[in-house]
C-alpha cells in the first residue's frame, strides 16, 4: 500500500473545491439547523436553483456574468421565501419533508427531457465559466509535493476559500448580534420568544433565506468549479452528506461546518484511495469474493452511514460543538 498516494488523494480532496462546496452548503445548514433549529433537507434544491439560475442566464439569455451571479442568488432567496411562508408555521418534520420534496421536484424538472431546450436535460448546461476563468491570475499548476492542483482548480480554491472565510466572518458577527441571539432562543423555546413579543415566523423566514443564500453560493461555486450545471449533482444524498459534514464538525459553531467538510472529504477520499488500492490488482489485494473494485468504491458510503449513526447517537455535538447548544432534543 502506498500511503503517499492515500495522503495525496485525501489532502487534495479535503482542501479541494468539493470540500468548499460542502463547507458553503453546510454553513447554510448551520444557520438553519444549528442556530435556528430548522430542518432543511433540501439544501441541494437551493444549490440547484442558484447554479441553474447562473447557467441559464448566461447560456440561454445571454446576460452578463455578474448579473447572472446576482440572478442565481436571487433564485435561492425566492425559493426560501416560497418554501418558508407555508411551512415555517408547522412542526419541524413538515419543513423537512416539504424541502426534500421541493429539491426532488427541482432536480426532476431540471433534468426532464421535455425542458431540454432550456435546461439542457440530463446533460445539463455548460459554456458559462469563461468570464470566471478569464479572471484567473495564476500562470500554472501548483505541486506542493504531497498535494497538487491544476491551474483552474487553484483559482477555484482561492475564490472558494475566500468565500468561505467571508461567510464565516458574516455568520460570526451575525450570531453575536441581538438578531443571532433571537435565532438561538427560537431554537431553544419558540413559545418563550413569542411571549416576549418577537415575530418568530419572521425571524425563521429570515434565517431560512440567509441559509438558503449560502446554499445558493455553494451551488454557484459548484457549477463554476465544475464548468457545467448537471441536475443529478443536486440530489438528495448531497444534502444528507452536507448534514454529515456539519455534524462531524459541530453544529452551532461558526467553524464547525468548515472543519467538518474538510474532515469529511479527508475521510471519504482517504478511504476511497485505501480500498481502491486494495482492489486494483497490484499484489496486496483483498480476495475478490470479499471485495471487487466496484465494491471498493462503496465501502466509504457504508462507513459514512454507520459513522453518521454513531456520531448522532454518541456525540451529536460533533467535534467542536457544545451539547447544550444543539437542537436535537427539540420537539
Amino acid at each position, binding site marked *: 500500500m502506498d500511503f503517499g498516494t492515500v495522503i495525496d488523494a485525501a489532502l487534495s480532496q479535503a482542501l479541494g473545491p468539493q470540500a468548499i462546496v460542502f463547507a458553503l452548503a453546510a454553513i447554510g445548514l448551520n444557520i438553519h439547523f444549528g442556530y435556528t433549529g430548522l430542518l432543511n433537507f433540501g439544501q441541494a434544491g437551493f444549490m440547484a436553483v442558484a447554479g441553474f439560475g447562473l447557467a441559464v442566464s448566461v447560456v440561454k439569455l445571454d446576460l452578463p456574468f455578474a448579473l447572472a451571479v446576482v440572478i442565481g442568488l436571487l433564485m435561492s432567496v425566492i425559493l426560501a421565501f416560497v418554501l418558508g411562508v407555508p411551512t415555517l408555521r408547522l412542526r419541524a418534520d*413538515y419543513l423537512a419533508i416539504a424541502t426534500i420534496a421541493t429539491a426532488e421536484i427541482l432536480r*426532476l424538472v431540471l433534468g426532464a427531457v421535455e425542458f431540454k431546450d432550456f435546461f439542457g436535460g440530463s446533460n445539463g448546461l455548460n459554456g458559462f465559466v469563461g468570464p470566471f476563468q478569464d479572471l484567473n491570475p495564476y500562470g500554472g499548476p501548483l505541486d506542493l509535493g504531497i498535494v497538487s492542483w491544476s491551474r483552474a482548480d487553484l483559482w477555484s480554491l482561492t475564490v472558494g476559500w475566500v468565500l468561505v472565510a467571508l461567510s464565516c466572518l458574516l455568520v460570526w458577527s451575525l450570531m453575536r448580534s441581538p438578531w443571532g441571539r433571537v435565532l438561538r432562543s427560537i431554537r431553544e423555546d419558540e413559545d418563550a420568544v413569542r411571549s416576549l413579543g418577537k415575530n418568530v415566523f419572521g425571524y425563521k423566514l429570515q434565517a431560512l433565506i440567509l441559509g438558503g443564500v449560502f446554499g445558493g453560493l455553494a451551488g454557484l461555486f459548484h457549477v463554476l468549479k465544475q464548468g457545467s450545471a448537471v441536475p443529478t449533482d443536486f440530489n438528495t444524498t448531497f444534502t444528507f452528506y452536507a448534514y454529515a459534514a456539519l455534524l462531524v464538525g459541530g453544529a452551532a459553531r461558526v467553524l464547525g461546518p468548515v472543519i467538518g467538510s474538510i474532515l469529511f472529504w479527508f475521510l471519504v477520499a482517504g478511504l476511497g484511495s485505501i480500498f481502491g488500492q486494495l482492489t486494483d490488482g497490484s499484489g496486496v489485494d483483498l480476495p475478490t*469474493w470479499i471485495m471487487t473494485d466496484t465494491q471498493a468504491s*462503496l465501502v466509504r*458510503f457504508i462507513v459514512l*452511514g454507520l459513522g453518521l449513526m454513531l456520531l*448522532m447517537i454518541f456525540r451529536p455535538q460533533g467535534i467542536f460543538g457544545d451539547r447544550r447548544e444543539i437542537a436535537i432534543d427539540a420537539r
Partner: protein
Amino acid sequence: MRLRLAALVPLVMCLTVLGGLTSSALADETPSPQASASAGSSPSAGETAEPPDADFYVAVQLIDSSKKTATSPGEPVPGVKLTVTQGSGTAVGSGVTDAEGRVYIPLEMGGKYKVELDPKTLPDGVKLSGEAATTKNVSVILEGATNVQFQIGVVAEKGVGFGAELSQALFNGVKYGLIIALAGLGLSLVFGTTGLTNFAHGELITFGAIIGYVFNRGLGLPVIVAGVLAVVASAALGWAQDKGLWGPLRKRGTGLVAMMIVSIGLALLARSIFQYTFGGSTRTYSQYVAQGPHSVGPIDVADKEIVIMAVAIVVIAVTCISLATTRLGKSMRAVADNPALAASSGMRVDSVITAVWILGTALTGLAGFLYAVDKQVSFVMGFKILLLVFAAVTLGGLGTIWGAIIGSIVIGIVSEAGPVFGVPASIKDVGPLLVLILILLLRPQGILGKKQRIG
C-alpha cells in the same frame, strides 16, 4: 455507552448476514461472461444467453409479436445475427439470438453505436415490421444493459381513446397506490406510536424485495414461498431494529430530530450494503416476469396484477380490522395517543412499540416484494418511492391509518394518471410531490389528520 454500541452490533450483523446471503445467492447467478459473444456459432436449442460481465452491453430480444397469445407477448426469434458497429462501420461485436430470442453484445465503453440486424438470417416467414429498419442508432450511456428493439410482426396499433387510456391509468394508479399503501401503513404505524419520521423506510421496502430475491433466485424457492419468507424476514428485521437500535435510543431519551438523522445514516448504510452485495443492476424474480395481459373491457390486466392487488387489499383490510378490534391493536392506538397515560394504565409501552415495529416492517417488506413482482428488484427501488410514501402519508394525515390508505391511492392515481393529462412521462413523479406541497399549504394536517398533531 459501550452497551449501546453493543446494541448496534446485532443490526449491523443482521444486514451483513443478509449481505453474505445475497452475494452467495448471486454467486450462483454469476453468468459466464462471454456466453453471448460466441459470434457465428448458432446456439443449440435450450441454451440461453446470460448478461455478460461487461460494464456496457447492448441487449436485444427479438419477439415475433404476430404470434402474441394471452400468456406470452409473442414467439422468440432465434438464430438471427446482430452486429454492433461504431463510427464508419468498424464492427465492435456481434452475436446470434438464442432460443429465447435474446442476445447480449458486450462493449468496451459507452458511446454512439449502430446495431445492425442481418435480415438474411431471419427465419422464413418472419419479417420486420414498422419501418422495417435493419439498423438502429443507439447511444450507450449507462452501465448495464442498453436495450435495442426491432419490431417484428407488430400490427400497427390503432389509436387508443382517451377513455381507455384514462381507465388503464386509473387501474395502474390503484395498483401502485395499494403497494404504496402497504408501505405507508408501516410508516404511519411507526410514526404514530413513536413520532419518528423514518428516512430509512425506503430501505425497508428494498429489503423485502431483495430478501425475496435471495429466497427465490438464491435458494431456488418458488416466488410465492419466497414472498411469505420475505415477509417473515422483514418482521424479524423489524424486531431486530427495535431491539438493537430504536429501543435503546428511546431509553436514552434521544430526541426525535436526532433519531431522524440516525435514520438517514441507517438509510445510507443499508442502501450501500444493498448495493455492495446485490450490485447496481436491476434483476427480476424467476417467475411471473413478463405475463401477457388479458383485455378486460378497455384495460389490459395481467394475472399477477390481480393477485398483487388482492393480496394488498386483504392484508390492508385485516390490518385495519385487527387494529380496531384486537387487544394489541387497541393498545397500539392507546400508545399512539398518549404513551405516558398508556404506561400508567399498566400497558407495557415498550413491547407495544416493538410489536408496531414488527408489524410495520413486515407490511413494508410485503410492499417491496409485491412491487418487485410487479416491476423488478434494484437496490434503489425503495429510496426512489420513499418520497411518494411520505407524500401519501402526509396527504392522508401523518399517523392516521385510514388517512395513509386514502392518501396512497390518491398519490398512486396522480402519479399514473398524470401522463394521460399531458404531464411529461419523465417527470410523472413530480405530480405527487406537488400534491404533497399543496396539501402542506392548504391543509397541513392532511385529509384525516387532527389539527393538534401539527404543532
